[in-house]
């Protein structure tokens, strides 16, 4: 202590003037909106960030392929059917060699493909460029997902909010309705859609829209139930805010993280469901392709033309994994309890 004393400046023990005092109510940190804060937390999660970028790239590629697809995804050349992948001169895995009936042959030569023409991911049974079709298929799958998501959002969120907010008998009835809807196998619904409308993106989206919002509605209802007794909602009511405004200004923004996270799960579910429908033969109608129809075509010839299954499967898996990881990341980022 003796040492310290010596170091002390002369005016050390003068009282601090009020003006010199720090403003104690000051908030030093830069102001961040909730989203910014969530974004900051999300950025910490490497997997989620990578997933986000992967998705962005996939979406850009898929959407962009409308304008700059390597080839026309529907252009057939039956003579070039089932060519294996080949890049440039060819290297391992992309050398254009196929194992046909036990013998390894240069499929490109056999099909009489001129030099310099090659298909990066090979061709399908009609000689269509698989890469272009995968891009196209991804686009359709994403479209199915997003269209379905849209309905999911509109119906599921509204339903859940109304059910949770009004509670009581309204809630009981709405919950029973939910129960009934969720007890109908959604395959049946799809079939009906396909019959009422035509098979294709629209029917599938409709079917997903009809059945896919159940989880959303349940989650939103539970959240709304929890939230409607929260004091900030009560405060709005004591101020005389109308129900509609409360829903828009208070409920919805605070449900947003639940909604976004659920969406992140809805999207892969929709893509998956479409793939399943394609498998049982009631998916997107030809010549349009979705990842589901591509997979469905691919798996049948998996033994001979494995690339026809692997590439669509890989793309589907990457999309699914990315959405899932992103959803996980978002859940953590939106959870204020998450630290670090």
């Amino acid at each position, binding site marked *: 202590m003796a040492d310290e004393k010596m170091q002390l400046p002369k005016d050390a023990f003068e009282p601090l003037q009020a003006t010199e005092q720090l403003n104690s109510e*000051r*908030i030093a940190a830069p102001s961040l909106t909730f989203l910014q804060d969530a974004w900051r937390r999300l950025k910490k999660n490497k997997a989620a960030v990578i997933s986000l970028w992967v998705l962005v790239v996939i979406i850009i590629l898929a959407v962009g392929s409308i304008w700059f697809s390597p080839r026309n995804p529907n252009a057939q050349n039956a003579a070039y059917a089932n060519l294996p992948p080949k890049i440039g001169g060819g290297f391992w895995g992309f050398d254009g060699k196929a194992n046909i009936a036990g013998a390894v042959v240069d499929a490109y030569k056999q099909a009489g493909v001129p030099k310099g023409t090659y298909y990066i991911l090979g061709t399908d049974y009609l000689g269509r460029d698989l890469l272009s079709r995968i891009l196209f298929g991804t686009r359709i799958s994403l479209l199915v997902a997003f269209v379905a998501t849209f309905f999911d959002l509109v119906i599921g969120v509204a339903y859940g909010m109304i059910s949770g907010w009004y509670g009581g008998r309204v809630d009981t009835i709405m919950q029973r309705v939910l129960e009934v809807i969720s007890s109908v196998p959604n395959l049946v619904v799809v079939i009906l859609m396909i019959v009422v409308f035509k098979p294709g993106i629209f029917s599938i989206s409709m079917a997903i829209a009809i059945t896919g919002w159940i989880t959303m509605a349940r989650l939103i209802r539970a959240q709304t139930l929890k939230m409607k007794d929260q004091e900030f909602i009560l*405060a709005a009511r*004591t*101020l005389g805010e109308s129900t509609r405004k409360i829903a828009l*200004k208070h409920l919805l*923004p605070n449900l947003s993280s639940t909604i976004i996270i659920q969406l992140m799960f809805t999207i892969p579910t929709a893509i998956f469901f479409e793939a399943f429908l394609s498998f049982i033969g009631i998916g997107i109608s030809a010549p349009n392709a979705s990842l589901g129809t591509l997979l469905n075509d691919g798996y049948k010839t998996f033994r001979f033309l494995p690339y026809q299954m692997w590439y669509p499967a890989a793309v589907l898996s990457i999309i699914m994994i990315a959405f899932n990881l992103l959803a996980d990341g978002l859940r953590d980022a939106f959870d204020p309890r998450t630290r670090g």
Partner: protein
Amino acid sequence: MVERKKILQIKNLKQYFNVGKPDEVKAVDDVSFDIYEGETFGLVGESGSGKTTVGRSVIHLYNPTAGEILFNGRNIRQLKSAKEQLEFRREMQMIFQDPYASLNPRMKVKDIIAEGIDIHHLAKNDQDRDAQVAHLLEVVGLNADHSTRYPYEFSGGQRQRIGIARALAVQPRFIIADEPISALDVSIQAQVVNLLQDLQAEHNLTYLFIAHDLSMVKYISDRIGVIHYGRLMEIATADEIYANPLHPYTESLLSAVPVPDPQYERNRQPIFYDAAAHEGDEQVRQLVEVVPGHFVRTSEAELPNYRQKAEAYRATLVK
């Protein structure tokens, strides 16, 4: 005593939940009391005793199961037109217990405070709105540049002051403060309590102050009601309740309050109250004005005792 204006009259208020179901709760069971203009009425009781429910019924967040609530002489259930209801919402406001749950985390402080201004169209234009918000922030001791921040950036005490600013924005005459300080640290409680008192003096506000912290209630209130299991046990002025508690429950409550005084604490003897034993006999009990201004829940049989004690105390005061 000068006859003062009763701003709020509660008559036989009953608030039951889940009526008719097995889990029926009689949260508030036949409660009556009045609040005079300009005073602070404290409501104390243990957790689950129905304090919050009384507050919420008064501000018409619940529809009472039975009973009447008159505000400025008008039954709040009979406010039919939207205009009347809005009017009511302007005159009566509430400050909430939980500083974390009572502010919408997704709204900026500015918009939280201005919500009432918007609803009641109290601002002429955006500029006026901003000016009002800035003023309110100043009133509660915050800076104008806090207005663009989000609630989570504030400490508990600061948030509670934001909540107060929100309530003040519509210039109410009556404020229900539902445990506004129980969630705060001791060192910050005082900030808020001081603020509430300053505001009362300045704007002639009336408070219904709900708390379970007896020392703070005693400090801030003019009169206090003690509630237990949804029933009022005793009402009297703050000093009288403290100095001369009549009901055994009030006594027990007072005796349990720890005081930051080691010497006193070493000698404090808590008195235990057994509701079952006390109310278990089949006697009919009611809130009775034992001496003017001092009400106790009592049966006919117990009344003389209480009255005697009350009168004795009053006598010492006169001396």
